[in-house]
């Protein structure tokens, strides 16, 4: 008997759904074991009946519910609550669902300031009142991670999560397991670069120039990015972005990590720990440009980001 799966995207970009498809050839072995009773991306099940004539939003019962995206509006909240009610196991897939993700950068502003810019201050937009209609769900006060609203059984972090882990977690669930987690290791633990535990000092460099490396040589011949004086979130970021094999994927591109897999363990304080990591190689965290936003790029939910109090006029 195939396992019933219900999947939907909330405040998401659909990258997680694409990552499911990037499982590639093994997907064909997984598919017959799964019955998608609801999946907006691929399956035509409707909330209000197939003829659109019901008044209450209904979702089918499922063994597993997979949710991508955080919660940004009242309707997403409602869909999430319904999915939770009708599923035995709820999987939060991706860093938006796990931590709020990039869209939770919006938490640095009041909602009304965001609407002001979008609907009244953009240069090609004819200024107008905020959309207001029963069919346009109002925003929640902040952009939240899924576990700020409902109980989550399994979290598969990443922006996007690597297909290896999606397949691994789904296989575990098919075997009857109700828990799954990535091992608690840092990106640095899986990064082959050369580390000497010191940098040249000075202000932290922006990526206005490329890293120093020889393209003909592997990453094991490149100096650590923090030690080169650039900012890399590897020390405080959960490992696994390259899947079961391979090196951290941003490093593979010869670019720094920005923390898309989130903190190494629940309750960690990545901003504090990261400042410690920078200091330990002789860099001054105060010289990092746009520090608060960059260190919380993927984790702005869980109240990690909030509007700063207005500064007195200078």
């Amino acid at each position: 008997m195939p396992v019933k799966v219900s999947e939907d995207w909330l405040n998401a970009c659909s990258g997680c759904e694409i990552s499911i498809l990037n499982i590639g050839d093994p997907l064909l072995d997984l598919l017959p074991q799964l019955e998608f009773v609801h999946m907006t991306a691929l399956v035509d099940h409707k909330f209000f009946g197939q003829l659109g004539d019901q008044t209450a939003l209904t979702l089918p019962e499922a063994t597993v519910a997979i949710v991508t995206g955080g919660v940004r509006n009242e309707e997403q909240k409602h869909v999430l609550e319904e999915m939770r009610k009708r599923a035995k196991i709820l999987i939060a897939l991706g860093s938006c669902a796990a931590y709020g993700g990039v869209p939770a950068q919006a938490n640095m502003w009041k909602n009304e300031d965001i609407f002001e810019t979008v609907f009244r201050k953009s240069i090609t937009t004819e200024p107008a009142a905020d959309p207001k209609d029963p069919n346009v769900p109002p925003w929640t006060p902040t952009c939240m991670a899924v576990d700020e609203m409902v109980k989550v059984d399994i979290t598969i972090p990443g922006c996007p999560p690597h297909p290896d882990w999606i397949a691994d977690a789904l296989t575990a669930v098919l075997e009857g397991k109700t828990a799954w987690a990535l091992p608690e290791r840092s990106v640095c633990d899986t990064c082959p670069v050369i580390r000497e535990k010191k940098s040249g000092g000075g202000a932290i460099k922006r990526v206005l120039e490329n890293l120093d490396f020889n393209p003909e040589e592997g990453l094991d011949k490149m100096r650590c990015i923090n030690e080169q004086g650039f900012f890399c979130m590897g020390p405080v970021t959960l490992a696994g972005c390259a899947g079961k094999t391979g090196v951290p994927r941003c490093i593979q591109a010869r670019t720094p990590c920005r923390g898309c897999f989130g903190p190494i363990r629940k309750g960690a304080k990545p901003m504090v720990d990261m400042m410690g990591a920078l200091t330990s190689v002789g860099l001054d965290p105060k010289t990092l440009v746009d520090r608060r936003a960059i260190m919380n790029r993927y984790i702005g939910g869980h109240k990690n980001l909030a509007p700063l109090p207005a500064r007195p006029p200078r």
Partner: protein
Amino acid sequence: MGKVINIQPVTRIEGHAKVAIHLDDHGNVADTRFYVQTLRGFEKFCEGRPVEEMPRIVCHICGICPWAHHLASAKAGDAALGVTPPPAAVKLRRLMQNIAYVSDKILHFYFLAAPDFVIGPDADYSVRNVVGIVQAAPDIAKQVVHYRALGASLLEHFAGRAIHPTFALPGGVSKPMTEAERQEMVAPVRELLEFCKFSLKFAKENVFPKYLEAIKSIGVIQVGFLGTVNADGAMDFYDGNLRLMQPDGSFEDFTYDQYPDYLAEHVESWSYQKFPYARKWGALKMDLDDPVGVYRTNTLARINVADKMKTPLAQQELEEFRAAFGRPAHFTLLYHYARLIEMLQCAEEALQLLEDSEITSPDIRVKVEPREGRGVGCVEAPRGTLIHDYTTDKDGLIKTVNLIVGTTHNNAAINLSIKQAAKEFIKEGTYDQGILNKVEMAIRAYDP
């Protein structure tokens, strides 16, 4: 007022939308609306970010076309900081874009659209999906899954990430391509090209002829088109001039930074998505019988505005398409046909780029300095012309962001196509699941 049919969620599309069809007392269509229900606010929360970080932030706007946002953003950064990336950097950006777009077009044609054509528009919803295709045509499904993931794996292998890349930065790209990396990529890209050829042949023989009636009846409207052409007038996804075409085929070309003179965005109280329109044609009027200012983007628009394709096999296909449907072609379901012609160009151009000896040059980035400036960066995203417009302060931090993304251009047109399809098929209160799905097919053609 009579009853309201709520189609929610609109499925097999790439976002959050709902359709309401209002019937009058006789059960005929009084009005329809396409509601876009989500908003994230990138235009605001990018303010203050360093311009060199933007390509790896704004890619998160769309997980299906992250490379489009990534590259438009890098180009806006190039322009704001006043730098020209070295030729090899441009070639590598183009290579990644073309490979990413092949995967994107495979996704849309086979996973999202094909269930309507291969399983059938009236089939039960529980089988009208990719799982149904796996059962109905297992050999094709196997290839589809394989080649879509192959494209993604090529991107990941070279550029680290297939989804939400970090490779392009103002001034160029983050790493050069070695000769070994180039050689490894040639054979798989040849395979992708063969699969693109197969897809066109398959669709022309087995899909399109069966649906000629549907093509002539679902979502048909007559409006303008917007796309990008290079200096030769050929279709170009990465760079060129914007071309705005009237419904009769006459057109005007303009440069990226002139876009605010040609385009404006209207806001309706019932959708988070704005309604761009051609401001020179008059105030926006979303009237099915007399639309004003409405234009379309994405595949059919690009095929119409381009004088020719950039590569030989795609050019042959365009000639065949034009002989059958003319220029401009207006039937909405032809978006699917145009999509496959574009996919062929993407694969051909990817191979050409790989065979260009300059692509392995180590000169791939110029150093950039922060400065106060403005940059408009555009590319053709799979779903249409993508406009990123940034201003920076003296430290190279973002002051303002204006974004008009591919699908947004099509908002007014999608609304009109839905209205047309609903009016065509729903009469005197008679409708069924198949008919409602045909209304959705009018949306899916745009691949929103």
